[in-house]
């Protein structure tokens, strides 16, 4: 538990430093995360390894405790902010080294609905997990989603609704994807307070995600499946 002795990050060996980073992400300590990312890079770590072993793994632990009702939104926001600090250092390096992508998602609240806290949380947690995310904002007609998906930049579509009156619009979007013959090219995740699994199935989504942590886990599962299929095919 907490001892008062000060921790000098640069004096920790790699293994301890990574574990300390998991703790510091959990505690939302942005400056410490930035410092540790730089230390690992100086020690010759690949940017992709820093991302996956230190940051993404740390956020995975945050996600589990958020899902289990141990951490709440304020703590998760601080953790995501710390992650973002580390990510800002890694991003240009990741692009330079041609590191593999974890996946990309386009997300938006559906037409008629102006709620955005839940969607913003999913965006932050997905980014925290190393996904690229494009946020379409609130009140999106079907055209916005289709236009984004047609760019070919995305693997996953995320839709959010907080109103019982707007959630049926998700089906309009999915039906349009089916009409255009593009439904099977994407994983569709849906979420929002009034939704449930039954509703997700009824409208033809791949999964209903109860909260942002579940969204991340589900997205990872689907991406793993997709990679396996590509490897097999």
């Amino acid at each position: 538990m907490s001892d008062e002795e000060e921790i000098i990050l640069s004096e920790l060996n790699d293994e301890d430093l990574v574990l300390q980073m998991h703790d510091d992400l959990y505690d939302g300590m942005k400056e410490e995360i930035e410092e540790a990312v730089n230390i690992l890079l100086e020690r010759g770590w690949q940017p992709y390894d820093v991302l996956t072993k230190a940051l993404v793994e740390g956020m995975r632990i945050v996600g589990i405790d958020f899902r289990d009702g141990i951490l709440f939104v304020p703590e998760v926001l601080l953790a995501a902010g710390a992650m973002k600090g580390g990510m800002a250092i890694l991003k240009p390096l990741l692009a330079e080294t041609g590191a593999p992508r974890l996946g990309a998602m386009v997300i938006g609240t559906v037409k008629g609905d102006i709620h955005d806290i839940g969607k913003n949380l999913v965006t932050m947690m997905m980014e925290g997990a190393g996904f690229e995310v494009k946020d379409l904002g609130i009140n999106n007609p079907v055209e916005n989603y289709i236009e984004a998906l047609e760019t070919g930049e995305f693997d996953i579509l995320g839709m959010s609704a907080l109103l019982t009156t707007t959630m049926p619009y998700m089906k309009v979007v999915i039906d349009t994807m089916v009409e255009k013959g593009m439904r099977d090219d994407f994983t569709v995740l849906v979420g929002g307070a009034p939704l449930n699994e039954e509703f997700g199935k009824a409208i033809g989504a791949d999964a209903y995600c109860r909260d942002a942590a579940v969204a991340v886990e589900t997205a990872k599962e689907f991406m793993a499946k997709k990679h396996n299929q590509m490897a097999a095919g």
Partner: protein
Amino acid sequence: MDTQVTDKLTKLIETQGWVLADGATGTNLFNAGLQAGEPPEFWNEEHPDRITALYQGAVDAGSDLFLTNSFGGNASRLKLHNAEKRAHELSKISAEIGREVADKSSRDIIVAGSMGPTGEIMGAAGTLSHEDAVEMFHEQAEGLIAGGADVLWVETISAPEEYAAAADAIARTGHPWAGTMSFDTAGRTMMGTTSAGMVKMVDDLGYAPMAFGANCGVGASDLLRTVLGFVEGGATKPIISKGNAGIPKYVDGHIHYDGTPELMAQYAVLARNSGAKIIGGCCGTMPNHLRAMRKALEETLVGAPPTLDEIAAALGGFSSESDGTDGGGPKRRERRRGRG
């Protein structure tokens, strides 16, 4: 005015032992033709007849108190419809219509000026400052008071910082107020506040509400667990209980709340037994539910507080095993090496 209203509510609680609040605003307005995405507050001006009908529906069903159609009437929410300058005006009209309905009634009816959340995140990782939130709430509060609201009614709050900002804003007006939070995440608010935590927070406020409690959230069972938590937490002020009429279900392209009037009647009686003094519904609660609730409250004697098992048996199970007040449930993990 303040003491007069306090007396009105206190008198009602004294003579009846309880006060019946209203039900859903959104569900009722959608049934009246409100389109998704359309701000309900615009209807105060465009369709005052429908807002009158909304309030009248609650009064005729036996509510002693109803909330004005101004939940999203703060500058931050109205901004999404390019109407951020209209917070005072639209809130004022919502209360004026309410005043008219209340004054026409033969019973004493309390007009409660609804103030919903800003929708912004406050606190350490947030984007909205305390000062800005106070300004927004104050602007809306002034509008509601100008329109004739007897009491201001802050609802569906998740963050203690936002509740405190509303308190500071209303302190400027000197008007009486009540405020509820929404406990929808493992028995806590989205920001992690427990029922016991709210009791302490309310006690520590400089300008305290005359009543406090819970609204919306998950289902009627969870809400009653929260009410029991308030009592357990040492609440001294009247407790408000406004639960949803069951859980929304998707049937043939439409949404139905599965809570029947009979279930809400049981909920009302259990809420009172649990210690709530001001009892109403939230999403999905229609006049027929309110009627059943009134009847049940009038025809049933106050009983002992229910156990959690009794609540689950009557209204259905809970959304989480623990609500964070009993020391049960999952724990925060051990830090490997924390920073002092």
